[in-house]
């Protein structure tokens, strides 16, 4: 390619630019066709009346009617709130567990490389297979978890995924376990970049283990913490597959019906495509606002 460009007597600077564009083209095309255009269409659709199969022949703009209806729809509002609840548990749990795991993996111990590989297994496993395994593990009557609890004398055994109160937190925690490896590896690489001299000088100053974590490690990896929080929040709002797999589509009742699931149901079960699009646009706005707040707030605690 570069020889062809040289033959055309194009300057080196432009040759590099052309090569760059060529490398970008596959991504840009796929992004345009499979992401940008559908997102744009969904945005347009949210202002239209495409809420039944026969509406396709008489499509028209109806302004904000779909958006106004969302705010009157208790099922949709409850689903948004459940997503926030899910997100709160997921992001908090993810942050602490992945950081803790990264600190452990950053130390020297036997089979470190094997264990580092093993923690990545849930992340690359099929989500439906994971769901099936966890459903067996948490089976209320004879599942291993409740069997162990009953051996230790527990009488009111939790119903886990079959409990209207526990299903959402349980799914959230399982999701942490599934995705944690990715965040752990990001933290691990960040931890390995903290200069050793800082630890040595803090030791000379008499700082203990926790002091070194709070005054050296955390400030040094704060950009990574920020990245993990932003990414985790976005992942937590797009939690469709794991909830569907573990809870028969948001059950029991609607106790784990998060907004991603609600959008899917509205669109593909009830054929309310515009209404579902309006809910998706609102979800996008919610995520955008949360992310903007984080960007603004990061100046106070992230050290670059």
């Amino acid at each position, binding site marked *: 390619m570069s020889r062809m460009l040289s033959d*055309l007597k*194009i*300057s080196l600077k*432009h040759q590099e*630019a*052309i090569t760059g*564009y*060529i490398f970008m*083209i*596959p991504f840009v*095309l796929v992004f345009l*066709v499979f992401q940008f255009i559908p997102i744009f269409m969904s945005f347009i659709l949210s202002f239209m*009346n495409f*809420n*039944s*199969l*026969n509406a*396709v*022949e008489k499509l028209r703009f*109806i302004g904000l*009617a779909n958006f106004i*209806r969302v705010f009157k*729809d208790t*099922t949709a509002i409850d689903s948004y709130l459940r997503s926030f609840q899910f997100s709160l548990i997921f992001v908090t749990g993810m942050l602490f567990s992945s950081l803790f795991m990264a600190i452990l993996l950053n130390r020297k111990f036997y089979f470190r490389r094997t264990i580092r590989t093993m923690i990545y297994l849930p992340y690359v496993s099929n989500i439906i297979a994971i769901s099936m395994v966890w*459903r067996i593990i948490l*089976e*209320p*009557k*004879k599942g291993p978890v409740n069997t162990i609890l009953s051996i230790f004398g527990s009488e009111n055994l939790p*119903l886990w*995924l*079959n*409990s*209207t109160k526990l299903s959402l937190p349980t799914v959230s925690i399982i999701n942490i376990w599934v995705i944690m490896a990715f965040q752990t590896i990001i933290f691990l690489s960040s931890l390995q970049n903290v200069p050793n001299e800082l630890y040595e000088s803090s030791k000379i100053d008499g700082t203990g283990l926790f002091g070194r974590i709070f005054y050296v490690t955390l400030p040094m990896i704060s950009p990574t913490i920020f990245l993990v929080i932003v990414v985790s929040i976005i992942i937590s709002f797009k939690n469709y597959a794991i909830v569907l797999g573990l809870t*028969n589509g948001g*059950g*029991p*009742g*609607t106790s784990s019906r998060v907004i991603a699931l609600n959008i899917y*149901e509205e669109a*593909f*079960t*009830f*054929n*309310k495509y515009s*209404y579902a699009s309006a809910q998706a646009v609102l979800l996008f706005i919610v995520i955008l606002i949360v992310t903007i707040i984080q960007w603004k707030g990061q100046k106070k605690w992230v050290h670059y």
Partner: protein
Amino acid sequence: MKLKFRVIVSLLLAVMILGLFAGCNKDSKTDGNDEESQKPAKSSQKAPTEKETEKKPEMVTVFVDSKDAEDGNSKKLREDFTARTGIEIKLNVLPGVGQEAYKKLDIVLLSGDETDIVFLNQPVIQHKYASTGLLMGLNQLFKDKKYDAEKIYGKFLKKYDGEIFYLPNGATVWAVFYNKKIFDEAKVPYPEGEWTWAEYIETAKKVTDHEKGIYGSNMFNWDYYLYMIARQKNVTGYKADGTSNFDAPEYKESLKFYKELSSVHKVQPSWLDYSSKKYAWNEFVNGKMAMQYFGTWFVNILNDTETYPRDFDYGIVQPPANPGAKNNVGVSGAYGINKNTENPDAAFEYLKFVVENWYKYFGSPPARVDLPDDEMDKVIKTIAEKSGGSITVEDYKKAVIDNDLGFVDEKIVGEAAAQYSSVIKQEGERYLVGEIGLDEAVKNIKNKVDEAIKTEREQSEE
């Protein structure tokens, strides 16, 4: 130089874009399995001769779900159709089974797909597609072909403002299947003839043996089971003003009945057991359920011992019915023609063949009123033979045809029917796992469905 640079970049971009879209192009209106792929492609390398071009065989394209694509009976039906008419079949396989496949079908039909034949497995789907104009109106076609649908399908024929959009392929009713081995071991006589739901429960109690893990009754976590008593009494799902009728006492009775099978009578696994996938929908085949209340299509599963091996004989008996509710329930599956079809003649031939002959391949009672009695006897004889001695022709006829039960549709069909079904299952589940009481469940279902109906009306006016 700048101009040259821009031209080169633009050219490269154009080539890549064209390449991408050229890859997406296909010269076929279907993307599924090709039934003809079973035959070797003999002349793929050779250009067709003039004679071959002239004699290009007629082709009909058919939507099927992934189960139907592989089902032996369906394959035989399609082969027989081609053998009889010379019309070849190309399948458009939808991913998933049942409800999941229809989610894909909605989108495919909306996108203007021209696949000729659409399978409509239950009344809610039939109502949805017929009332939204995705199916071809069949009156004119039938008139042109001199096809008297009224004469063949009679009471099973459904019309929308006088227009026929689909034809029924069978009238599946419900029956109770029982495990003879469990009954023999418990020394309990087999159920027969008329019986009530109270008698069903008493029988189930006698054959339930928790130590052996045997339950007397098996009704999975399908929404129908939560309102079956009401439907059997033919209590409609909608009031005259179009709002939900779920506050009718019969619906409350239905929910209570289902819950008490496990919580009070202990004859059936709980909702929790079903929803945690401890028991499968067809658990009866595994030999631990004494009785299974199911549609008669289940006989095909029981007779397919290669796929579903079993170590017991089964029996079949008519469903229990309480006084004042002497009805069986059931659904008619149906087939229609896509309104975008470019091939109505071949589509008509397939439609006619499949709905007229469905019962011969699947053993379901036909939705036909023109058949002589001995025609159905032949079909039942085949079912009895395939059962390996489990049931006789008489057993099947008594359970399914020759009894004094009337017939009512099992589904609640009308405005916001999909939401109705979904809400019943959600609120019913909350009641069944003990989160809310019976009255609250009924009230929630009524209110939520009313809200869904109201929204549906508002949205249809927008």
